[in-house]
């Protein structure tokens, strides 16, 4: 586990948790990103607020880069087929399953929702299987 970063990941997680709590306490809405994205595309209610949250997701890292020498590591596959198929499945799956890593994995689990605990186990499991299969074909390292 040479890439293991428990400390910074824990700090980042705590900051994410603080955002979720502040958003819920003030607006009454849960910060599930796939839901916010889907609503900003397909729902007129709170559309501009949802869009602003998404804009914040881009501004946050940008501000962080301003104060940090490193502009952050970003390594992604260059296969267009993986990108297009992956993006489509993430969009379709998160809406069909009513949540993603934030909605089910953070908001749902901390509310002890059985559906969210179940969903989180399923998407992590299928993620693990997918990565394992791709590694057998030498696609992921």
């Amino acid at each position, binding site marked *: *586990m040479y*890439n*293991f970063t*428990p400390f*910074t*990941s824990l700090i*980042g*997680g*705590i*900051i994410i*948790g603080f955002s*979720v709590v*502040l958003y*819920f*306490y*003030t*607006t*009454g809405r849960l910060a599930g990103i*796939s839901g916010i*994205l889907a609503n900003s595309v397909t729902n007129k209610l709170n559309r501009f607020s949802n869009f*602003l*949250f998404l*804009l*914040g*997701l*881009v*501004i*946050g*890292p940008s*501000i*962080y880069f301003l104060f940090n020498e490193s*502009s*952050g*590591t*970003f*390594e*992604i596959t260059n296969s*267009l087929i*993986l*990108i297009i198929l*992956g*993006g*489509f*499945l*993430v*969009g*379709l*799956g998160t809406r*069909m399953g009513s949540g*993603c*890593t934030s909605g089910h*994995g953070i908001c749902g689990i*901390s509310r002890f929702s*059985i*559906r969210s605990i179940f969903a989180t186990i399923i998407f*992590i499991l*299928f993620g*693990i299987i*997918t990565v394992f299969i*791709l590694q057998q074909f030498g696609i992921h390292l």
Partner: protein
Amino acid sequence: MKDKILSLSCGVIFGVGLVISGMTNPEKVIGFLSITNDWDASLIFVMGGAILVTCPIFLLLKYQVTSLLDARITLTEIKHIDRRLVLGSALFGVGWGLVGLCPGPAISSIAFFEPITFIFLVSMIAGILFNKYIAN
């Protein structure tokens, strides 16, 4: 107006958390899903750290009916596990494993100016619209 300022602020805080946690890097997420080869358990600490904050606060606010901005709090209390939840989560898991991006980091990745992530975003929105189409 307050709603808009808070939405933007919460998005910024969430984005800072994501980048500090390392989860904006797809390779790191793939490292978490790669349990048989150089497993990187960091993602557990991200979720753990977040839940450490959210869990006690959600418990405290359990019987809250209106938010600070006077919005009605309506949380779904659906308990049964249906086919859509299972199939949707499985499809999401496959897509997540293919690239290493889930919705939050996918949007934050715009800050890295990598053209390929825009293709991912367009495909993701296509998936969202396709779900709406088949649900009707």
